């Protein structure tokens, strides 16, 4: 047997990913412009403590949580649409969030890197509302969730139209361009503890619902008619899963902007390690997404230290490269079994 035969048990993968997350968060608390000293000094130095506890830790925990939300959403999208290329932004939520941010920036000014509480709240709120409205618009255009292909097409249309509107706004108001750029590239730099708590709570809710409904995704992988013939309530479950998908994506996008590829790559990475049913798939994809975004965030902070680059740039380069490699590898293994 080839590499496909030597599979890991899902439990081990889950444990390894948890350990990796913990390590990443610990490492994240030690990396920054003041370096490792802040960590050592944190016990007696108040400023150092603040740097570690109020800036670095929430950022790392938040990166992990946002990545987990995207990973979960990616696994749900790929299961729901039975398409390995589906990603969490599929239903138009990404363009909806950008439009929301563009509108908010135009109305209130400022940029997404601003630290003032109200501005931040306004922008994340606008991104979330934009994402959810875009998904609702997609559902409206597709006249419900029954028809998967129609849903996909409607998502593409909503994505293109809302994206164009957001571009139009930035064109008319060049002063919001920089702020928009920051959002579009994705960044973990302004996650605070409130955002962490919010994301972790949403994550918990989404994982529980997705886990409970996962057997429908298993059945759906045999086609819609077979799933129906097995007596499953396909309609209501699909609505619930689309809601979970929108909620998870909207929450992550609102806090970190458009982080590319995590939602697409996380389920693929999991599949390359284990072949499993969707109950493990959603759990492991969430963990994997967390580890991915956390490591990308660490790299983004370390590579050009003390400068940092937007984490979205890194996830795009790394995730894209990885998927290419995966594609190449699966082609060569299929050609020579």
């Amino acid at each position, binding site marked *: 047997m080839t590499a496909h035969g030597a599979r890991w048990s899902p439990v081990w993968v889950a444990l390894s990913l948890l350990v990796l997350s913990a390590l990443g968060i610990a490492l994240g608390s030690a990396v920054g412009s003041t370096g490792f000293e802040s960590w050592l000094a944190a016990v007696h130095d108040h400023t150092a403590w603040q740097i570690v506890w109020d800036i670095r830790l929430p950022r790392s925990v938040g990166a992990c949580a946002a990545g987990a939300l995207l990973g979960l959403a990616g696994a749900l999208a790929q299961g729901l649409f039975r398409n390995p290329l589906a990603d969490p932004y599929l239903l138009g939520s990404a363009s909806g969030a950008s439009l929301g941010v563009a509108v908010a920036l135009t109305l209130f000014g400022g940029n997404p890197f601003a630290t003032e509480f109200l501005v931040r709240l306004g922008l994340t709120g606008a991104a979330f509302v934009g994402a959810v409205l875009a998904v609702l618009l997609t559902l409206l255009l597709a006249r419900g969730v029954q028809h998967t292909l129609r849903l996909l097409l409607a998502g593409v249309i909503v994505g293109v139209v809302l994206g164009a509107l957001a571009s139009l706004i930035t064109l008319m108001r060049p002063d919001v361009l920089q702020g928009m750029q920051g959002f579009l590239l994705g960044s973990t730099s302004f996650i605070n503890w409130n955002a962490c708590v919010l994301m972790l709570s949403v994550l918990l809710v989404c994982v529980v619902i997705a886990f409970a409904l996962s*057997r429908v995704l*298993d059945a759906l*992988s*045999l086609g819609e*008619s*077979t799933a*129906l013939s097995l007596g499953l*309530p396909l309609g209501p479950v699909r609505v619930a899963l689309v809601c979970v998908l929108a909620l998870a994506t909207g929450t992550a996008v609102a806090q970190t902007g458009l982080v590319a590829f995590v939602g697409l790559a996380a389920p693929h990475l999991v599949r390359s390690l284990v072949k*499993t049913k969707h109950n493990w798939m959603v759990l492991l994809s969430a963990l994997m997404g967390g580890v991915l975004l956390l490591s990308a965030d660490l790299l983004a902070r370390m590579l050009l230290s003390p400068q940092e680059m937007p984490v979205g740039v890194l996830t795009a380069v790394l995730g894209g490269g990885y998927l290419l490699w995966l594609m190449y590898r699966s082609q060569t293994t299929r050609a020579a079994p």
Partner: protein
Amino acid sequence: MNAPLMALRLRDVHVSLAGQEVLHGIDMSFVAGRWTSIVGPNGAGKSTLLKAMAGLLPVSGRIFLFDQALMAMDQKQRAQQLSWLGQNESASDDLRVWDVVMLGRMPHQDWLAAPSAHDHVVVETALQATQAWDWRERSIGQLSGGERQRVLLARAMAVQAQVMLMDEPLANLDPPHQVDWLEQVRCLTSQHTTVISVLHEVGMALHADDMVVMQAGHVVHQGACTDAATHRAVEAVFDKRIAIHSLDGQWVAVPKL
């Protein structure tokens, strides 16, 4: 003499797809414990009829599954009594063969319950019957078309329903496994399971107990496979381009050149 038990009864069933009526008033019954094959030219409505009987399509008219109205039945209860194997069912490549066949036990399981010992036995029996047991740990993407078809067949058998509907179950199967399938169907009907299958190969379809001949959305004939009237009806719907002959006690369809 008692009237035979009817597994499925259709009364004036019309089905429309995309605004066009494709089944025009079907009236027929299927005797329980027998194997019926449905044949007819492309576009005759065979697959649509099978889907309608599986409760997968909106229909006008009435369908009864063992005297219960199919559309009014509880979905789970229906799924326990009626198993459906579709044409070109695409399975995602990543599920293990074992997990795919276990999906067939879903109608018998509670929502979050783990598979019971009985479920394991049933899945193993189904995998052994289709000779797919050796691949149980493989993912379905690693199998060839014919191997995959045998796994999907095991999935449909694992439901252990009283009525099995199969659309082109022989697709991709090589001749020895087609014969295996015939034997499995014989075994199922001997345990009083009703099997209804759409078959493209008339020669295979002639091995059934009964045959339904369809053309242009109508049932033009229903009768025993050994009946000469059935043979004439089959030849007629295929424009007399095939002829049915007897050979070594079996009926075969040969092209008429």
